[in-house]
């Protein structure tokens, strides 16, 4: 069978296409064979009684003086249970009619007994021809009956066979349909498992409820996940090592540059030193950001170490760290704190908030305000940083989330990793980051909405399954 199935056709569809038409054909052929067999049995039975009648008629032939005479047999009369009309004709060796209906001719065939379907007038009849040897030669006895009983029986067999067949076909199709559906359930479960995970999740798939055929596939996938995890881990390690290695020399350079700026011997070089310091602090910032990003990679499996984290002291720490900077930049950095706590990594959330505050301080001009808020208790905890700076145009809001993307024409120390880090950490915490305009349509308001406490220890449940 050269059935051309698209290789992408679903197994469900494929099984149905491969199974249903041949099964239906088979059932139809089976029904037809049943019908034929029943017809043969029925005809044999009816022909036998007709033959008996012919033999009885032949027994009444007599030969007198070399001539054959026929005694008329008692003709069965048609009645309600026996509606058939009987005909007979007896022919001599010289093909002369001896007795009976002259229109009833012999069935073709040379044997002693021959059968045929024929027409008599407008009646369909069944003829049996019995050739009887007598002293005066071979007499031919033809007996015929109309076929209404045979028709009725044929009709009955036809209907019952087809009805049965129809029921069987339907039942089989239904069973195949249900069976295929049910049989594919474990496969669908695996699909569900893969679909429900985030694309960045590299946890192994659960293998306990996987059917034997799919097991190698799932094992292969898990192997691949493992390789990816390992690759991501070593990449992260590499980035972290590189950043660490850079930090000590950067610290030295930053220190010396700072000293040079204060050195009276460097008088007149202030502007050039300022350029150098600015560049150096960008390098330092980038090294820190790369490290933060490496820490926040989902492959770090930090979700396993999530703890009940109170956001209020966390916000206080971040603000405290940035007070000097805001004073230097002429900004009013403040807070509006309400009870809020999440299940998460305090370390990472501090990185997240640090980056948001960092951005706000970078992009808000002197005299502006930056306000950090938290609240929502345990049911819908959130962090929010609002500034009254230039704001992010609506069209740019999705792009600023990408790594290394910076707003066109923007100044400041950013390396374009800040919001990417925020996104990464938010993702780890299943938190949603929204970027809006601040109050009155001015500035930027970035809100990180964490899931309620009950919905969180996702990492923990997954962990207990895999370990």
């Amino acid at each position: 069978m050269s059935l051309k199935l698209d290789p992408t056709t679903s197994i469900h569809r494929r099984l149905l296409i491969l199974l249903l038409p041949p099964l239906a054909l088979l059932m139809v052929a089976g029904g037809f064979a049943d019908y034929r067999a029943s017809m043969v049995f029925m005809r044999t039975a009816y022909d036998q009684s007709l033959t008996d009648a012919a033999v009885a008629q032949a027994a009444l032939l007599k030969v007198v003086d070399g001539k054959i005479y026929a005694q008329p047999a008692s003709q069965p009369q048609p009645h309600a249970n026996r509606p058939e009309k009987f005909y007979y004709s007896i022919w001599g060796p010289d093909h002369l009619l001896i007795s009976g209906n002259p229109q009833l001719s012999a069935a073709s065939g040379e044997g002693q007994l021959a059968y045929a379907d024929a027409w008599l007038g407008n009646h369909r009849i069944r003829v049996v021809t019995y050739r009887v040897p007598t002293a005066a030669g071979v007499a031919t006895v033809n007996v015929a009956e109309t076929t209404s009983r045979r028709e009725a029986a044929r009709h009955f067999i036809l209907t019952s066979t087809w009805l049965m067949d129809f029921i069987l076909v339907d039942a089989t199709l239904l069973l195949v349909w249900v069976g295929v559906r049910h049989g594919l359930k474990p496969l669908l479960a695996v699909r569900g498992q893969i679909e429900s995970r985030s694309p960045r999740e590299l946890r192994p798939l659960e293998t306990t409820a996987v059917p034997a055929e799919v097991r190698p596939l799932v094992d292969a996938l898990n192997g691949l996940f493992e390789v990816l995890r390992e690759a991501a881990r070593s990449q992260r390690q590499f980035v972290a090592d590189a950043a660490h290695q850079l930090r000590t020399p950067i610290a030295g350079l930053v220190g010396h540059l700072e000293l040079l700026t204060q050195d009276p011997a460097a008088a007149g070089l202030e502007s050039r030193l300022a350029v150098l310091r600015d560049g150096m602090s960008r390098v330092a910032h980038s090294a820190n950001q790369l490290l933060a990003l490496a820490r926040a990679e989902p492959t770090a499996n930090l979700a396993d170490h999530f703890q009940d984290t109170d956001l209020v002291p966390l916000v206080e720490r971040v603000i405290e760290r940035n007070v000097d900077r805001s004073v230097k930049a002429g900004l009013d950095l403040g807070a509006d704190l309400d009870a809020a706590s999440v299940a998460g990594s305090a370390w990472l959330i501090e990185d997240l908030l640090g980056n948001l505050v960092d951005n706000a301080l970078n992009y808000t001009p002197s005299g502006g305000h930056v306000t950090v808020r938290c609240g929502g208790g345990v049911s819908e905890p959130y962090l929010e940083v609002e500034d009254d700076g230039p704001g992010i145009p609506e069209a740019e809001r999705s792009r600023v989330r990408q790594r290394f993307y910076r707003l066109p024409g923007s100044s400041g120390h950013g390396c374009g990793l800040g919001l990417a880090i925020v996104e990464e950490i938010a993702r780890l915490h299943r938190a949603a980051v929204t970027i809006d305009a601040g109050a009155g349509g001015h500035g930027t308001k970035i809100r990180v909405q964490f899931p309620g406490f009950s919905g969180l220890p996702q990492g923990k449940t997954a962990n207990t399954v895999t370990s």
Partner: protein
Amino acid sequence: MRILVVEDNDLVADAIARGLGLAGFAVDRAPSAEIAATALAAEHFDLAVVDIGLPGEDGLTFVRRLRSQGATLPVLILTARETVAMRVEALDLGADDFLMKPFEQTELAARCRALIRRANLNTNGQLNFGRLRIDVAGRQLRIDDKPVELTGREWLVLECLAFSAGRVVSKERLQQTIARWDQAMTPNAVEVYVSRVRAKLADAALIRTVRGLGYRLDEPEA
């Protein structure tokens, strides 16, 4: 004030030594834990700045050894490699503060000053902050050696801010501190006392308001 800088990287050690020197400290350098131990045994230092990644004995082990030998001098840890565990471990071991590389010279100097100030408070009940001389035991404030009169509540506000000088003190904490003296203390009343202290300090020190959080005692801006 004498500081021992234990750092093997010359570039960093040199920058720190010069920076702290400019900030008015006397600085000695030790490129390894062994040399630092010898120096500490021989002479008096007010503070040690210790890098974690030292050749031979690492910074954390060195601090643990110092503390087990009963040394009380404040220790500020420097590190290029940060992990939560390391930060916790360093503070548990008896380090007093923790600074990530790279850092600003002014930040390092400010931290050193704060650590030494705290150590002095512990040893002789004196708290020096810029032009302020706060005699905690004698309940006396001097600005440029001139005594300044404070009421009981004003004193509590100043003490509370000065103990955490350079750090934000929350309004709630101030409120609780003063509430022992006056049950009906409101947040507004805290503001009143803070502004009174602010007026008495005049230009000798700055009480900075951090919106929504609290207050911070700073040295006046240059």
